[in-house]
């Protein structure tokens, strides 16, 4: 087991409970995602695992070693990219990577890391002159030059353009292909779906669901979402609750919720449900204003579990 933690709690004075009992087991060689909205406790959790914060209670093991006894040794094994580190502006890219390399007993060669992260032609540029995507890649480079066994990435792609995000994903996959273990936090569901073998969704300092992306989506009960809106000009306008009963009763519907003026149905087989839905609407004498179907995503899992969207401020 690469990372194990049991019953992690973190209470900031006076009475803010950032973590309320977190258990994780992350296997060697997997990419594990911690998901959750801002303020859910992701960063607190990852910083405790990185040995930068002390938990109020609970136990952390990295490859079976604990921070209390083997901190210096553990640091040799971890490559870390913190949220929003601003590296020294007046050093060049190469100087920055060489500086970090000098901290480790057996680092990788700077040249190789520069090439791998696509920073070779920027190697003599000052850090202050880099674009957001290049900076983020440099932050990951300072982690990879350690030749780590575990890579910790705290929101590595927040604020990046789509192309830079894809570049970073590729770098993470490459690290994993060489046998590395990755722990990342993100609030992008699509990122977690593409990158992570397993993930845990955190809300208010607790894990509310864990598993592989496919498992979590499967737990919704159906893998398809049908979203529609109707103009209700019928004589017997029913209350929202009544109409929800109607949708829930349609064949193949696993769950119903309202979202931003739309009705969302979680569905196993769209080809069974949709004809029935259309019939039900016309029976009500209502007019169909909008209808889409799509694959269910982790976002739907989150909404289903919490009733909130992931990027809403909680």
């Amino acid at each position: 087991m690469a990372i194990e933690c049991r019953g992690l709690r973190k209470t900031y004075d006076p009475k803010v409970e950032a973590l309320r009992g977190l258990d994780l087991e992350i296997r060697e060689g997997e990419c594990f995602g911690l998901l959750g909205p801002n303020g859910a406790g992701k960063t607190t959790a990852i910083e405790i695992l990185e040995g930068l914060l002390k938990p109020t209670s609970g136990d952390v093991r990295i490859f079976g070693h604990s921070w209390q006894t083997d901190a210096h040794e553990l640091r040799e094994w971890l490559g870390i990219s913190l949220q929003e580190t601003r590296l020294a502006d007046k050093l060049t890219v190469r100087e920055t990577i060489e500086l970090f390399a000098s901290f480790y007993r057996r680092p990788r060669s700077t040249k190789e890391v520069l090439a791998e992260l696509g920073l070779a032609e920027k190697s003599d540029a000052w850090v202050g002159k880099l674009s957001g995507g290049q900076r983020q890649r440099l932050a990951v480079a300072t982690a990879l030059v350690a030749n780590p066994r575990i890579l910790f990435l705290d929101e590595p792609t927040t604020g990046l353009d789509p192309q830079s995000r894809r570049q970073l994903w590729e770098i993470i996959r490459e690290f994993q292909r060489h046998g590395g273990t990755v722990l990342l936090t993100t609030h992008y569901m699509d990122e977690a779906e593409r990158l992570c073998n397993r993930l845990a969704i955190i809300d208010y300092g607790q894990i509310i669901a864990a598993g592989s992306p496919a498992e979590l989506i499967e737990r919704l009960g159906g893998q398809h979402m049908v979203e529609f809106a109707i103009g209700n000009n019928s004589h017997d306008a029913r209350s929202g609750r009544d109409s929800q009963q109607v949708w829930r009763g349609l064949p193949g519907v696993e769950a119903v919720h309202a979202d931003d003026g739309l009705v969302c149905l979680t569905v196993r087989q769209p080809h069974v449900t949709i004809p029935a839905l259309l019939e039900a609407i016309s029976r009500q004498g209502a007019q169909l204003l909008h209808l889409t179907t799509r694959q269910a995503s982790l976002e739907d899992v989150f909404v289903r579990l919490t009733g909130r969207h992931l990027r809403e401020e909680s």
Partner: protein
Amino acid sequence: MTPPTRTGHTSNLAGVTPEPSAAAAGIAGRNGAAKPNARWSAYWHLLIARTKEMQREPEVIFWVFLFPLLLAFGLGIAFRSRPASVPSVAIAARAGAEAVLQMAQRSPQSLHAQIVPEAEALNGFRLGRYDLVIVPGGETGSTGGPTLEYRYDPARPESVLAREQADNVLQAAAGRANPLPTSAQASSEPGARYIDFLIPGLLGMNLMNSGMWGVGFALVDYRQRKLLKRYVATPMRRSDFLLALTSSRLLLMIIELALLLGFGIFVFHMRVAGSWLAIVLLGALGAAAFAGLGLLTASRAQKIESVSGLINLVMMPMWVFSGVFFSYERFPAVVHPLIRALPLTALNDALRATILEGAPLSAQLGRLAVLLIWTAMSFLLALSWFRWT
């Protein structure tokens, strides 16, 4: 529990704590791993990085190197020893002014006099352009000449001097005989001039400024950027980091010292009486003391704004009391022991004694002790308070 290596090396014996090499073989079994790092590799890289960072910061170059030179140059020019300050005297344009001017001009080397309309003369006196105004009176005195009134300011030394000088010149011109024959010989040694007093003081102040800012400000900037946190997330030894920061100060100290003293020697013909080794040792001790104070002020502050205030608060009393621009002997004697306990006072006094009088360090153990105590106390306190995150 032994972490299994995933690259196929199975040389680990079960139950044995992994050796560094086994662990660090890490992910890579990959090619291109760099040479293993030696013990002081991190220290050297940190020192080089810090030096490069400072060198690339134009503000640092200005404030640390150029500013003290400009200050020394400006003050050195303003307070240069002029060949006998000739008092500047205005004679109010009244009846008899011509006669007074003629008498005054008999010794132009000791008096510079001119006739000026009365209002302008008084205004010029108020503004410091004239040291003395002579107002010829209307009536005739017992000798047949005009009665003279001196307008002078007893609070201005040059005004008092001008009155004495003018009176002497005029009385002599009017026929006063000196009963006692005298002669005078000029003697002005380098070492006693204001610039000689000033340069060691500026050196001390500069070591304080650059130490407090170079360490205190840099640390809080690192902390605010979360760079300190990023560093402690690596196996970097914290002591290496602080050592590198302090060493970079010592390197800079050598340059500051050479520049300011070199400037004094070449531009103002200053003479250095003491040994250079003693001066460098004092500089190092001063740099260390202020690096420690900088570390202490930066040990908790989270924002650059708050540490700037703190640094100024710490430095302010020393700017005023520690005898940078003028001797602290001017403050009441009761507070002298307090002033001497300040690190900058100890540094300035020691630098002056060594540079100007050639006093050996062995004669200044008290000052050295003050500096050592400040250094030790601030480092100890700072290390127990310091926040890396």
